[in-house]
């Protein structure tokens, strides 16, 4: 499948990369409010249901035997977190469009990922901290004796002045580095 990228004067068809980035954005204040309201409503209903079950058990004279079961159920249900809705933004989105890394609103990131397009269980997840900056690029190497450039995916972040980088080779090997000084040919690209 090809994705569209619209520049000022033309539309480019972009083939999907083997490894693609995606980010989950922090919830908006509105989304947090909605989740809090839903949690309150859910908790109120659970309390009512708990009380109803206690009353029923009491009337049946089995409250002593049922109490633990009812409270176990109640505690389990009320401890479930209702997460606020969080926007996702992907390099190749579900509407068929390609996005550049520069389009990411980095101040809103909750989690940044690089995943293999045909198997998203193969991925690098970076829980985000304030002040982090994404590094995403392609390092293209034409090793000695070869006539074609090989594409290496570079994904990581800069934080407190230091870089943390993952280089993904054409064979999907992941090489971790603290900087961009690496002889990719020497390590077998």
């Amino acid at each position: 499948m090809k994705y569209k990228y619209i520049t000022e004067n033309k539309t480019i068809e972009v083939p999907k990369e083997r490894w693609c980035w995606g980010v989950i954005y922090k919830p908006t204040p509105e989304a947090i409010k909605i989740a809090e309201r839903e949690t309150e409503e859910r908790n109120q209903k659970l309390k009512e249901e708990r009380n109803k079950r206690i009353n029923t058990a009491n009337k049946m004279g089995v409250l002593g035997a049922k109490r633990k079961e009812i409270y176990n159920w109640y505690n389990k249900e009320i401890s479930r977190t209702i997460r606020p809705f969080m926007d996702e933004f992907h390099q190749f989105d579900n509407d068929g469009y390609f996005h550049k890394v520069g389009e990411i609103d980095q101040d809103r990131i909750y989690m940044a990922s690089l995943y293999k397009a045909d198997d998203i269980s193969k991925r690098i997840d970076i829980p985000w901290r304030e002040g982090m900056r994404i590094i995403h690029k392609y390092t293209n190497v034409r090793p000695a004796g070869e006539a074609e450039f090989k594409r290496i995916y570079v994904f990581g972040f800069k934080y407190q002045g230091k870089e943390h980088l993952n280089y993904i080779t054409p064979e999907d090997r992941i090489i971790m580095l603290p900087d961009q000084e690496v002889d990719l040919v020497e390590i077998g690209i």
Partner: protein
Amino acid sequence: MAAIVTIDESNGVGEVQEVDIANSNMGNVDDAELDPVAYPITPGENSYEKWQRFHVSDMNGSSEISNLKVWRTGALGGAAVHKTNARISDYGGAETYAKPVKTASAVADQTMPTSAPASANLGIGGSLAGALTVEGYSDYLVHQIQTNVADVAGSESVLNFQYDEVA
């Protein structure tokens, strides 16, 4: 999204350009993809200079090409040296094309690195920090092998090229 990047070589007085060279074979003739067996470097003499460039023929939506690196793999025979204008500091800026010569190069006066340099060693627009944001060329990579009379034919070394792309 991948920019289309090739390594192109310029030869001759009128700068005949060979696009997307398959190799950087060096020898006793000013030609791209030369046959080193047919045109070996005479011991004690030099190869013809190579004048090569990264060529971005289509950005294809990418934002930037930068951080160009060039280095050699393989040892040279005898006391031969491989000289280049590529360097990671005190860069001499963009060279203006001149017909490759086999006298000692006045442009290639640094030793070609034998492992990936820590940072860019070939410039764009005369600067190692330069970047291509539209189609175009890097600065010329000029390099030459200079041999000693005692050297014998038979060594083999090849060039690595690398660039970064942001999309």
